[in-house]
């Protein structure tokens, strides 16, 4: 079965994003495929490369990137949710005249059309909301 994952919750203040990560791993382990992981709302904060996690805690961004490179995940971050929260790639930083970009390599900024496409292409779209 083809799954897509929509993440809306904040990774800093809830367990939800960790649940999404574990669910994604479990889907892959069961032999299903993931069409796309779509980061929306507060979850886009997890895609910054400026996050400093205390040494005895787990860095969820690194966990996503590890899983993504092993499973060739398509990880898309909603561009309007990201830009308003200060998560910029090189092109957006240039376009909005900001001094630096901070989107972790491995994530891509794009529009909500990518979510609609994920809904069309997947048998199940699972939301991890608030």
């Amino acid at each position: 079965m083809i799954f897509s994952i929509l993440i809306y919750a904040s990774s800093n203040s809830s367990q939800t994003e960790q649940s999404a990560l574990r669910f994604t791993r479990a889907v892959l382990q069961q032999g299903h495929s993931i069409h796309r992981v779509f980061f929306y709302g507060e979850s886009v904060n997890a895609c910054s490369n400026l996050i400093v996690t205390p040494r005895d805690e787990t860095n969820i961004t690194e966990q996503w990137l590890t899983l993504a490179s092993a499973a060739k995940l398509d990880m898309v971050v909603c561009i309007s949710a990201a830009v308003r929260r200060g998560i910029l790639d090189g092109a957006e930083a240039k376009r909005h005249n900001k001094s630096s970009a901070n989107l972790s390599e491995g994530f891509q900024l794009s529009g909500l059309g990518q979510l609609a496409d994920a809904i069309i292409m997947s048998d199940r779209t699972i939301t991890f909301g608030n």
Partner: protein
Amino acid sequence: MPLLCPTGLSPLATEAMKKNILLIFRNPPFANSSNSDTLDIALACSAFELPVSLLFLSDGILQLLNHQQAELLAQKDLRKRLNALAMYDIEDYYVIDQDLIRYQLSVEDLSLACKVITQQQLAALIRQFDTVINL
């Protein structure tokens, strides 16, 4: 041999295009950005010709009240975008009778022409949809 569809798309692709979506609004206006974010998903899905229905559940029903003064809170209200939904062919809206009673509202108080269903019909409604998004 797969059957050919009149649209020229494979049966699988046509099936995928038919996928219908229910978006659930659960929060009151101005509480957080989830109603606005849900509305953005509705418009994006509609642009991809996915049939979209909206359910205003619990406090979400308050989103439909007229005469909101968003500017007093330095916020934007969703009214203009909600009123534009018909232009996107999104015309299927639901509320629950118990939520109307709880806030002493009637359907005339709501800015969209909603179908009223009972709590008991809710599960059956949700089951009609291929994808349900509840942020």
